[in-house]
């Protein structure tokens, strides 16, 4: 558009070689700078691994790996380093979250992809995207200031050992669920919308009802995308910090009971690193050992999700 963008370098005679008039050092410098930006992402990954590994290796010099992974008592101040209570804590919150979010998220996805009129879709989808953008500290506040008092009021007597106290796994799960519903809904909806409409029309022509088309044709055809959305959602839930810090309590506990309190892996990291533990002690290194475990779990889940996404792209694109 601008004349500067067009490099007219005089009349090229017949004998002129097809080479740039100058070595173009500027171009090369720019390319090198841009390459540096791209490599920064690899440097970040390396830095994450280094900053987790060095203290974690120190930790495992003091505490045997077997004790860390399989012992069932966690109290770093008393030299008990079994990580099982934290892992169970994380997954009990995630379990309750998924019990809420899977039906709601998939239901919303099927509705948006198969049932909703374009007009309704145009409204509901952005609203779900807004939900995805709400900071988790606000969702955690909702849990601790609204859901828990609500549960205390409506809890049926001593059901499951209730009524709940000031913190509870179930409410934390519900908040986590609220956080991941948009993830499940939007990725699954993408997968379902990319199922070719020929499949639907074929099923309708054979006399299938709308529900049958949605559940027996579109759902299986989009399954790998749906699985990817669920795995990504679980990985996001496992890594979530603020909600479990605010709502789930902070006591290591091996339970899946929604009324009880637990401490999740992320919550332990958040709490311990905030306090003033001296650098270099085993307690300080515990943070990094737990962080390494968390990193490995979410990384593995993400690799699985990427594989599933690639699978459904291959089928229909």
């Amino acid at each position, binding site marked *: 558009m601008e004349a500067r963008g067009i490099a007219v370098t005089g009349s090229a005679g017949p004998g002129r070689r097809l080479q740039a008039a100058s070595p173009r050092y500027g171009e090369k410098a720019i390319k090198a700078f841009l390459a540096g930006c791209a490599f920064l*992402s690899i440097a970040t990954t390396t830095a994450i691994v280094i900053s987790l590994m060095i203290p974690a290796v120190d930790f495992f010099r003091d505490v045997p790996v077997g004790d860390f992974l399989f012992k069932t008592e966690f109290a770093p101040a008393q030299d008990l380093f079994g990580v099982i209570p934290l892992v169970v804590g994380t997954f009990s919150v995630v379990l309750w979250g998924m019990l809420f979010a899977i039906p709601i998220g998939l239901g919303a996805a099927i509705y948006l992809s198969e049932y909703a009129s374009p007009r309704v879709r145009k409204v509901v989808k952005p609203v779900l995207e*807004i939900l995805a953008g709400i900071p988790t500290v606000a969702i955690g506040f909702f849990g601790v200031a609204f859901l828990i008092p609500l549960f205390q009021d409506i809890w049926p007597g001593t059901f499951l050992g209730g009524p709940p106290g000031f913190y509870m796994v179930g409410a934390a799960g519900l908040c986590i669920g609220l956080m991941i519903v948009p993830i499940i809904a939007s990725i699954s909806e993408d997968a379902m919308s990319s199922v070719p409409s020929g499949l639907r029309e074929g099923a309708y022509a054979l006399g299938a009802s709308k529900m049958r088309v949605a559940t027996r044709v579109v759902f299986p055809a989009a399954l790998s995308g749906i699985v990817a959305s669920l795995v990504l959602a679980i990985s996001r839930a496992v890594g979530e*910090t603020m909600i479990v810090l605010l709502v789930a309590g902070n006591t290591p506990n091996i339970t899946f009971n929604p009324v009880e309190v637990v401490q999740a892996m992320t919550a332990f990291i*958040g709490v311990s690193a905030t306090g003033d533990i001296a650098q270099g002690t085993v307690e300080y290194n515990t943070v990094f050992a737990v962080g390494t475990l968390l990193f490995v779990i979410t990384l593995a889940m993400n690799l699985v999700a990427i594989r599933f996404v690639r699978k459904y792209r291959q089928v229909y694109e």
Partner: protein
Amino acid sequence: MSGGPEDRYAGPARVGAAGARAATEAALSRQPGGIVLKNRLFRAFLYGAVGVALVGLVALLVDAFIKGQPRLSFDLFTNPASQIADNAGFRQAILGSIYLIGLMVLMVVPVGVGAALYMEEYGKRGSRLNRLIEINIQNLAAVPAIVYGILGLAFIARGPIDMGKILLAGSITLALLVLPTVIIAAREAIRAVPPSIREGSLALGATQWQTIRHQVLPAAVPGILTGVILSVSRALGEAAPLLLFGAALFVTADPQPLEVGWTALPVQIYTLAAQAQPELRELAAAGIIIMLAVLLVMNSFAIWLRNRYEQKW
């Protein structure tokens, strides 16, 4: 069933046509009552699912508004944090967030756009190096925020870089956290510029950088900007990684970029919400209203921008 073209036929032909039509319809639309009921129940379940999700969102917003509304005033922005809940405000937290996000944008925009340009314009598509960077970015996007906090603490604040728990270190951490999102959004925007534009520019003798600078980037700016705004709004609400910088402590002095002793809006909200006293929770709710209002404005602007400048080539 009347009113169609068959009205023009008279007598037996009309009766015959109507009969055939009725028979066809009866045969094709006959579905056992069970299927109809099942379809209705399924539809009700779907409406319920969407309804629950929307009700959750609305309840969250309304609850924060009801609880925080009595505390909403301009003093909230200017009053410093205080032990006395009645005149406590978010001055340091808001200033801290502004510094954090401002510095983060300065770092993440050139680096993110640069990385995207390299991958889309210079790197050979499908080459092993490009694939490695791509997979790496996908994985970085899924690393939990608190792990970035560990990175910030052990690599930037201490460890190899060792700049201390200053505000800038927190800002760098947030920049690394949102970098994958910015790169992914910028790549999509750059990829949406059709190759013919580049080829035209190169054919006229422009160098590769001139092509990028004058043709590709201007066309991709709205998409890039949308991605940047969305990452800013994510960083603005992110509290977890900042906890590791000691940002949850009680701060009463205005923050400085190169000094320790700072906090951010979401972190202060967390500190207040974790207390049991109703006045402090009320203050937390007021903070959430401020934060959500800023986020809503930014996200709406991003969506508007996307729709306004979405270019069809």
